[in-house]
């Protein structure tokens, strides 16, 4: 995949109220590139879920969005606690988020399922105690 453009973001893990800034910025950038509204919606929703997960569980991390001719790739990396059971984490409704997070409207156990639903591929590499790396891909129909 020939790379055209990439955006890099640091996701602040200390300020939950600011979570989503990177995703909103990506949405703006993609809109400027003239991508279809449906593609932009899929990318920004998947990225937002990943961003929120990094804030809730991992104390922040890094996000990179690569725009190529045939696809958009979203890479999320953190040095959080890792995901012990990825299969379980992928189940809709399963969440380990604390009550304080739930009271804000998160922690419904829809994050990873949404990321899968809105992308064409989702790859999760996670080691407990080391961190998590997620690569998502949204294909562009040219």
């Amino acid at each position, binding site marked *: 995949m020939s790379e055209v453009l990439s955006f890099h973001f640091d996701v602040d893990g200390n300020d939950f109220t600011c979570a989503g800034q990177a995703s909103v910025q990506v949405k703006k950038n993609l809109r400027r590139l003239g991508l279809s509204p449906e593609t932009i919606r899929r990318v920004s929703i998947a990225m937002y879920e990943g961003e929120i997960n990094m804030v809730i569980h991992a104390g922040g991390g890094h996000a990179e969005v690569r725009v190529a001719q045939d696809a958009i790739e979203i890479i999320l990396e953190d040095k959080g606690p890792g995901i012990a059971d990825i299969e379980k984490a992928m189940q809709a409704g399963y969440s380990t988020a604390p009550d304080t997070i739930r009271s804000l409207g998160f922690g419904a156990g*829809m994050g990873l399922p949404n990321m899968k639903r809105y992308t064409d591929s989702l790859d999760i590499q996670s080691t407990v105690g080391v961190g998590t790396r997620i690569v998502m891909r949204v294909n562009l129909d040219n």
Partner: protein
Amino acid sequence: MTVSELVARADLKAAALPDGEREITGVYIGDLLSWVMGRAASGDAWITIMSNRNVAAVATLADTACVILAEGVQPDEGVAALAEQKGINLLLSGASAYDTALRLRDLL
């Protein structure tokens, strides 16, 4: 119907109305933000009781026409200003989510 027209006709209060000409094309009700983001359609009026700053991010990403805080819920401190700045229409309804939706049903 535009958001400004809705405010005038549905007895709603505007906490922020930066894009009153935005057309409302549907309605979505929900408080779980991931759920809303996945299900609400672009152009929906989103009825919720969530009043924190994250609502602004979800409204932007889901591209809803407006957010309506139901049940007399007031936005958290700074959220109305944030909505204004982000171009998000934020409306307040004293009625329940159900009654607010019924009003929209009659008007849309």
